[in-house]
């Protein structure tokens, strides 16, 4: 009998086809740390026909919203996000990289006005989607290490 590595969930979200090695970044984006009340299942380095290797994250009793999806799209634009209700895929939420990344990245330039106490959200213009290149709307600098600047 085939042993299931990851069991189905009743309600929640399954993020599949995450590039291998990025599952922990996805957890960081979702703010999954100590204060989590539901079950989170992470499968890393799973064989995949399409990708060779992939990661999977399953979060029970939580459906992901707009900004969380935008953040995931930044690091894993080809991932699939399925909302599960009563063991069935109730909704497939497409990941689309927005033209502007608002409030989801921090500018790496310490001298940028967006890093000062001002009533604004960070804002980046997506200059290219593949490879991903973003430029700060305020200081005009390109963000080099995008993943580590996710808010």
């Amino acid at each position, binding site marked *: 009998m085939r042993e299931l590595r990851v069991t189905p969930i009743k309600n929640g979200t399954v993020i599949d086809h995450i590039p291998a090695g990025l599952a922990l970044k996805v957890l960081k984006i979702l703010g999954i740390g100590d204060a989590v009340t539901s079950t989170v299942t992470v499968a890393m380095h799973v064989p995949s026909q399409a990708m060779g290797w992939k990661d999977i994250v399953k979060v029970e009793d939580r459906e992901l919203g707009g900004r969380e999806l935008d953040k995931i799209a930044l690091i894993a634009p080809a991932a699939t996000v399925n909302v599960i209700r009563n063991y069935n895929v109730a909704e497939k939420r497409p990941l689309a990289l927005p033209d502007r990344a608002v409030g989801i990245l921090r500018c790496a*330039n310490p*001298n*940028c*006005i*967006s890093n*000062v*106490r*001002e*009533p*604004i959200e960070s804002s980046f213009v997506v200059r290219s989607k593949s490879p991903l290149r973003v430029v*700060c*709307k*305020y*200081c*005009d*600098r*390109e963000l080099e290490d995008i993943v580590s600047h996710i808010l």
Partner: protein
Amino acid sequence: MSSFRGRDVLSIRDFTPADIQLVLRTARKMVPIAVGEKRSRSLEGKILSTLFYEPSTRTRLSFESAMARLGGRALGFSSAEGTSVQKGETLADTIRMVEAYSDAIVLRHPHEGAARLAAEFTEKPVINAGDGAGQHPTQTLLDLYTIWDEKGSFEGQNVTLVGDLKYGRTVHSLAYALAELGAHLTFVSPPTLEMPTEILEQVKEKGLSFRAAHRLEEVIRDADVLYVTRIQKERFPDPQEYEKVAGSYRVDMEVLRDAKRGLIIMHPLPRVTEIAPEVDRTKHAVYFKQAFNAVPVRMALLDLILGEGA
């Protein structure tokens, strides 16, 4: 009515070549007023706020002079000391307050992107007078005016930028604008202070080729315009290394031996040792004229943005 009425001036990138040409032509018409030969009341009753969060005598005074020459008034501060900024007021709040006192706002601020933020919090036009190491579009416009006024055009001119091309903000905007206007560019700098790849990419995108060199002597004979910038001591951990590098980019009569007769030498000022005083007496030196050009160019911008005839 021009497209300039009420417009923000945040970055030279917001200007099309046609916009730049309009500013330059308008600036030329302003010269007799800027030198006091003619009078103008075209901005009578208008108020300009000059908010300088860090000192910049030249930029602030030329804006205030430009406004006064056109019959308008300027008010503001020349450092953050003694203002509500020191009490912890955000830039956004200061801008919302100043909006009520004036028709346009000139802003110099130590943080990059400050002018763009300011423009988001007011309906009044915001003119960026330098934001940290970011943009300084009115400096670029007065540099462009100087080249155009002296040379008559941009296309085909060999413009050589020399000095600190990595950190010098004026040269980045200038290189971008000159590429847009069809000038040939040559970059001369020490290996550690080369033009950033991003700027080089943008020049290439305009379909223009450029030259890069480490020695001024290699390229001086081809130059029509030599734009000299200061190499700052603090960029070098070793003072001796600085002396060596700075000395090798000094423009003096010896370096100019092979230069074209019509070569013009520009510098955003203040200079330290990068141009020898003996050069001041030659026909090549236009840097003091360049400094004067700040007034007609800023008058042109203010008139286009605020004037009734605009």
